[in-house]
């Protein structure tokens, strides 16, 4: 099915994720207001904005860890299923990296990476194991493969979590503040892995406060405030000449440090 699409369409024109008029409420709180967003294959989109602006919520609606009240979310043109096997199948194709790593605490690092391919995709164990070791090597934690998550540093855990996502061969990867819970000296090692992924052409949606990362690898910066997308631009334009007042204020507030 994939190859069919590739024949008829130019790869880079293919829309992987599309949000149309997405609205979400938490009770009274209007968390997402008329969100419209398109992410094309190979694009790296960085979501930034003040805390409480809805950027994490937006990220989490894409694999339906958060439900939406109205609007549409399309993955490769198909509507995001509401539940059941279809939703699980779709989630298997969308990688997600969390702020708090969320490695399975009772499984070794290697088992963490193998679990998805073996238990969800029912691939043969030995083959998966080999691939998992290669992935762990790629993110630089292969020497920790037999350890339990709690025995690793935050940076190592997050890199292992990225490997766990990659093991599913995702079409797109969501990063929900992947470095916010890390000690300063560990942030770069995680960002380096993400930069490498971006350079290899992975489609990525990244919620982050790391402006340098956004500057370096983002194709597009999406600035959110109060649940709405306020501004969408290339990183150069956004960081040097923001159009909206909100964005100017936000950039000033972080540049003060």
């Amino acid at each position: 099915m994939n190859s069919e699409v590739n024949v008829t369409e130019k790869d880079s024109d293919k829309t992987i994720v599309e949000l149309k008029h997405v609205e979400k409420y938490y009770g009274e709180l209007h968390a997402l207001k008329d969100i419209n967003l398109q992410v094309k294959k190979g694009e790296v989109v960085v979501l930034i904005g003040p805390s409480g602006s809805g950027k994490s919520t937006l990220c989490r609606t894409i694999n339906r860890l958060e439900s939406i009240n109205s609007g549409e979310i399309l993955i490769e043109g198909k509507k995001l299923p509401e539940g059941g096997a279809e939703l699980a199948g779709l989630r298997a194709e969308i990688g997600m990296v969390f702020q708090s790593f969320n490695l399975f605490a009772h499984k070794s690092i290697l088992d963490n990476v193998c679990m998805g391919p073996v238990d969800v995709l029912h691939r043969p164990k030995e083959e998966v194991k080999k691939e998992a070791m290669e992935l762990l090597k790629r993110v630089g934690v292969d020497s920790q493969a037999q350890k339990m998550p709690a025995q690793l540093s935050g940076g190592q855990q997050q890199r292992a979590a990225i490997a766990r996502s990659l093991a599913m061969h995702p079409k797109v990867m969501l990063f929900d503040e992947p470095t916010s819970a890390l000690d300063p000296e560990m942030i770069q090692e995680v960002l380096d892995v993400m930069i490498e992924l971006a350079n290899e052409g992975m489609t990525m949606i990244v919620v982050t406060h790391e402006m340098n990362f956004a500057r370096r690898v983002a194709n597009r910066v999406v600035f959110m405030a109060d649940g709405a997308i306020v501004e969408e631009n290339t990183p150069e334009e956004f960081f040097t000449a923001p159009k909206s007042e909100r964005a100017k204020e936000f950039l000033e507030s972080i540049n003060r440090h």
Partner: protein
Amino acid sequence: MNEQRTVRDALYEQPDAGTRKKITLVTVVSLFAIAVFMLYILKLFKDNGQFDEKYWSFFMRLTTWKFIGEGLLGTVEASLLAGVLALLIGFVFMVMRISFYKPLNMAGTALTEFTRGVPTLLFIYFFFLYVPKMGINLPSIWRVSLPVAISASGMVAEVLRSGVNAVPKGQREAALSIGMRETMVFTKIIFPQAIRYVIPALVSDLVIVVKDTTFSYIVNFPDLMQNAKVLISNYDALLSVYLMAAVIYVLINYLLNKVSVTLAKRGGMVPVVGR
């Protein structure tokens, strides 16, 4: 030296010299008081002739110990059966209670509260007096183990549920995000972690199960308590036999706690910080 070795060390600051003196004084006085009290009890026993040879000599016979051993085996069998049943029933109640379906959820809550609230003895009477009338004849071990298990199941369900609730939300989200269905998330990620959190609490419940199996004498199942009763009537030795039985029960439950500590340590899972 490790500074914070006990809960007390963690909760209170280091005592100063004056306080240390007071602590020593109170310790000595209370130890003395306890010793006097124990001696008084022993004297009471002695005055009542409890140390007479006739009350203790039969412990020298092999047959006595064989009989006690058979009772002990009965207690172990009944406890194991009741423990396993309590875990199974408790697990079912817990799964019902955390279910998304309202009716199941309510039934789970009701069953949990009911089994927790009713005394074990009532369940024993029900299975001993009423169930046979319905034409169901259970073997005597089931007549004690099943009611004891049902009585413990509500407690077990609550302990398991607290374990499930203790697993950080992120574990479930991560599992969902790699495409697991809810059932697999529960069986492969949530429950295995939950059980590790609650092993010590589950063993405490098992201790209660072991103690509850002493109701065996009501249904004529030969457990330690029942056999102790037989020894008592044979040798007319109430105190010495019950004392021995008590010591054996303490040993069993001490052993259980040791096992739980080992299991908890071997679990090897250090809880992660997370949401």
